[in-house]
């Protein structure tokens, strides 16, 4: 029989009955298992901290998102946004489900090829493509989304030396009525840059225009912005049809759908306020369907959703290192996962739950990571049960960006595991060692010896 959890003594003010500014105190049940696997066992096997991904959740969210669109629009294609999470196992789950690849750098492009993605189904985005990368993408028949005029000129040059015509789309930025308006990527719609670029492409005769692309921003909290964006895209498509009798093959609405996470400073939890896939789908497909397109020539709708598809499927399991009290008497807990692993904690209030049964008593706590750095704070204020060193915590909705933007600072990156549909666990990225950090270092001869 397990020993009972020790609860240290605790004095709290009684706040019975009345809800406070943040509503009734929320008490989340402990997360003892993920997909049927005991958290304590996982940590015992793979160490702490630990990244965990649920294959079942990934597939089920993907299918749900796809269904939201396919029941509203006849031709829908998702392209997995590599930058959100490019662990090969994760990418391949999406590819198995039928997603194409959306990459933003030469590295990601290579990675997608290595994963076995048909090069004609790789969308190459991003402002920083090199000449060599453009040549390769052209020869492979990948879809190149042009970001700026200089890239357009480079591609026309590339087209002269390659056998194939580059297959391109242009990225368009626009005012969709939200703040901030992203205008650093692509060509602007309102001031005519986008139309100008399209004319250049059509008149050059060197490029094969395939579609139109926009990415209006990230974590967009209103679906209506997409309706505005889609309408403007349709306008460009119609102008192309009118002037050049040219039919675009696809309209790519980019990504930016909000996940279930709660942004810092939000009054209500994100799961209640953020639009659902259905709302985004309704906005986009209505705008396309209520346009000049006849049912037969509706273009393919491409979505580059990343965050909303993966966030919920990722967890970080962490362990309590120590408890301490701050100068003002506030309780603080130090855990072994910090902002080095949880980059997204800079803008989210991640949901954190305990991983074992505990008492009913809770305390307002600040959660710090293990780094020797002042900014390493996971939650400034969170109601948690009293914790002892060695207790485990589960940080939720960490699937997006954390395994691509994680920092190598003073320590190594931990194991990443995947729990498959049958509950079996697979190590999908081994924890780093000294070799992975210092292996590429070169030491000049005169610095080799530090003793006389």
């Amino acid at each position, binding site marked *: 029989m397990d020993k009972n959890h020790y609860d240290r003594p605790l004095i709290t003010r009684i706040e019975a009955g009345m809800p406070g500014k943040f509503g009734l105190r929320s008490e989340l049940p402990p997360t003892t298992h993920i997909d049927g696997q005991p958290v304590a066992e996982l940590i015992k096997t793979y160490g702490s901290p630990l990244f965990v991904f649920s294959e079942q959740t990934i597939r*089920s969210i993907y*299918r*749900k998102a796809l*269904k939201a669109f*396919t*029941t*509203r*629009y*006849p*031709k829908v294609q998702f392209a997995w946004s590599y930058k959100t999470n490019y662990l090969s196992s994760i990418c391949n789950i999406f590819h198995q489900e039928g997603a194409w690849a959306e990459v933003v750098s030469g590295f990601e492009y290579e990675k997608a090829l290595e994963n076995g993605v*048909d090069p*004609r189904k790789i969308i190459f985005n991003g402002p920083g493509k090199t000449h060599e990368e453009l040549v390769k993408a052209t020869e492979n*028949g990948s*879809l190149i989304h042009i970001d700026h005029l200089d890239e357009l000129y480079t591609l026309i040059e590339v087209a002269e030396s390659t056998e194939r015509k580059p*297959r391109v789309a242009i990225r368009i930025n626009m005012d969709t009525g939200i703040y901030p308006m992203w205008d650093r990527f692509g060509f602007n719609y309102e001031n005519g840059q986008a139309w100008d670029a399209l004319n250049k492409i059509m008149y050059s005769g060197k490029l094969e225009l*395939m*579609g139109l692309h926009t990415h209006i921003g990230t974590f967009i909290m209103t679906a209506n912005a997409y309706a505005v964006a889609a309408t403007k895209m349709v306008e460009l498509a119609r102008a192309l049809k009118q002037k050049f009798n040219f039919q675009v*093959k*696809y309209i790519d609405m980019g990504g930016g759908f909000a996940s279930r996470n709660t942004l810092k400073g939000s009054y209500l939890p994100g799961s209640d306020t953020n639009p659902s896939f259905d709302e985004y789908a*309704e906005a986009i*497909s209505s705008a396309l*369907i*209520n346009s000049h397109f*006849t*049912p*037969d020539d509706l273009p*393919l709708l491409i979505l580059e959703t990343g965050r909303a598809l993966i966030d919920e499927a990722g967890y970080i399991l962490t362990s309590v290192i120590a408890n301490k009290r701050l100068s003002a008497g506030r309780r603080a807990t130090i855990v072994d996962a910090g902002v080095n692993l949880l980059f997204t904690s800079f803008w989210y209030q991640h949901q954190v739950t305990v991983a074992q049964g505990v008492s009913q008593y809770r305390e307002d706590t600040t959660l710090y990571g293990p780094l020797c750095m002042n900014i390493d704070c996971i939650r400034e204020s969170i109601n948690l049960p009293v914790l002892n060193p060695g207790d485990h915590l589960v940080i939720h909705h960490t699937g997006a960006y954390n395994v691509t933007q994680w920092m190598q600072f003073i320590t190594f990156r931990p194991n990443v595991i995947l729990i498959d549909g049958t509950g079996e666990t697979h190590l999908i990225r081994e924890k780093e060692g000294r070799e992975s950090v210092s292996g590429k270092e070169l030491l000049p001869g005169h610095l080799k010896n530090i003793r006389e």
Partner: protein
Amino acid sequence: MPGIIRLLNRAYHSSLNSYTMVFFSKNHLLGLLLILVSFIDVWSGLAGLLSVAVANAVAWGLGLNRKNILSGFYGFNPLLTGLGLGIAFDPTWQFYLFLVAVALSTLFITLAFEGLLTKYGLPYLTFPFLISIWIAVLAARNYASLIPAESGIYTMNAMYERGGPLMVRIYQWFGEMEWPLFIKTYFRSLGAIFFQSGLFAGILVAAGLLISSRISFLLSILGYVSAWLFYLLIGASMNELNYSFIGFNHILTAIAIGGFFMVASRWSFLWVILVTPIISIITGAFTLLLEPVQLPVYSLPFNLMVLLFLYAMKFRDRMLLKPEAVVVQYYSPEKNLYIGSNARERFRGKGQLPVSLPFFGTWKVSQGHNGQHTHKEEWRHAWDFVVTDEQDREFEGEGLALRDYHCFDKPVTAPADGWIEEVVDHIDDNPVGEVNIRQNWGNTIVIRHSEWLYSKLSHLKKGSVKTTQGSFVKKGQVLAACGNSGRSPYPHLHFQMQSTPHIGSPTLPYPIDQYLIDAETPVLKLYDFPETDQMVGNLPGEPALSHAFGFKPGQTIRASEDENKLAEETWKVMTDMYKNLFIEDESSGARAYFVTDGRLFFFSHFEGRRIGMLYLFYLAAYKIPLTYVRNLSIRDTYPPSSFAASPMLILQDFVAPFFLFIRPVFKLETGKREDDLDGSTLSLHTSCEPGIGIWNAPSYRFRIQLGRNRIQTLEINSGKNSFTIRFNDYA
């Protein structure tokens, strides 16, 4: 002199078909035999041929339908009249004057009967001959210059006069043969069709019949035997009086209803037996009626019987297959049977307006036809659709709010092009669990697709209708959103086809043109009815396939074989007057007829030389769905007549009405597809297994490679040989 050759060719076809049409055939060998038979009596044969020539020439000159003339439709009645008169009168010049006039009148009477009977979808058979010869025979009694021939009376004299001693000897040999009466009478009956009483004529006709069609031959025996038995039972003898002369009525009726107008089957054979007494009764009655004017009944019993039978069959509501009427006439009972036998399955969508599912994505049929809740009686042919999630639940959360339901507010699309007939858009959506029985159908759209074909979409969301009465909508256009109005306790879409424009009209069983059942192994359904609990969705066409198989009249394709083992062929895509599409090989004239409705491509039949690349292409692309489904496999059977004759095939012909043991199988499996925005590349693996009995045709494996929206190559492997055919210059 191509002009003269063309003229001779036309004269040859129109004349020969005039002879064969008497036996409902277009077999040239039979035609030549029949001509030979008619010339056993030279003067009679000459009169027949002259009569045919006059009628066909006048028909051509008058500008009648050329196809009909070439098919012999206007020639066979004048032929019979000519033969009949030729045997009855001496060949004087006055007779020929008379003959030409009668031939002309037969043509006119033919046209009159054509006009009269075609309206009812009935054939005119040999009625024109009957009327014409009766009139002629009666009229001839007034003309002194027309001398009745003696050949009927002094047979030997006539024989000697026309064929010399050899002819007499042949005639005597047949006459003295100790054959059973039963068999002699059969041959006499056959000969009588061409006004010949000799056995020799009958044997020749029987041989021709056997060569042209085994089923017709079998039927001729069946008709004859059942007549013989009937006369035996009723107490008369077929050999007595001039029954042998009218025996052919039974034979012709048997061929007509046993295998020509009806698909040969045990049912058609049964009817041949059942109508035997009726023919006899008609014969008896009319023989007496016509006696005072001294006219024979000729083929009147056959004409009346067939017409009565065919007309009666048209009134059937049910049992349409017992026996089944021939829809497309191939002038061969074998072809009618073989091609017709799987036509019902193959051509089930033919002539139907393609109707799609009225939504995007995959929905679940919550109630199908004859459903357990409300799809009953007059409204039984309807569907209810909902959207479910992976856990097969229709809603999220507790399902207490309409918004919780996955299908609620989802777009509803037009199932086919049409005009909006009626729109109701003001009825409130019910709260979950409540129904509005007063406004049963709730918000509804009725679309008119054609006269007598309407579709109705019901229980739509209030205020969601995006169209107006009278507007034209295109298939796939979003019309409204799924809701919960009317008799609907939870959101769902009600869809039905109907033949009248009202809300509440009874339903019509009308299939969905093409849909995919989403299951472990997806199933492609064509012109079928989704069933309760199936997950169904529309299937987008694969442009690579629809372009590649979208042969347009005027197109030219050059097919060449890589190693020149087969001669290069130039194919032309053409269409005939009846809008039948076919690919014709220019050099051999072989034709592969095909049908396509944008969903399916298939070859309907093949005519001509069964060698060469067009024939192989016919076998390889026998049935191609123009859509891509991974791991799809399709089976079909070729008509046995797709293969060259073999002993087993001849045996099959004999038993075909009862059972088919030769079932050449066509199989298709979709290969790997590399889809791309600029058009997919894919391959189809098909095979042809001729099966037992057709040992002179190997089994083939084919691989059709498609790319850049056209067929690139056709790889053929027949075990011993393998070829690669390249498709060039087709645009």
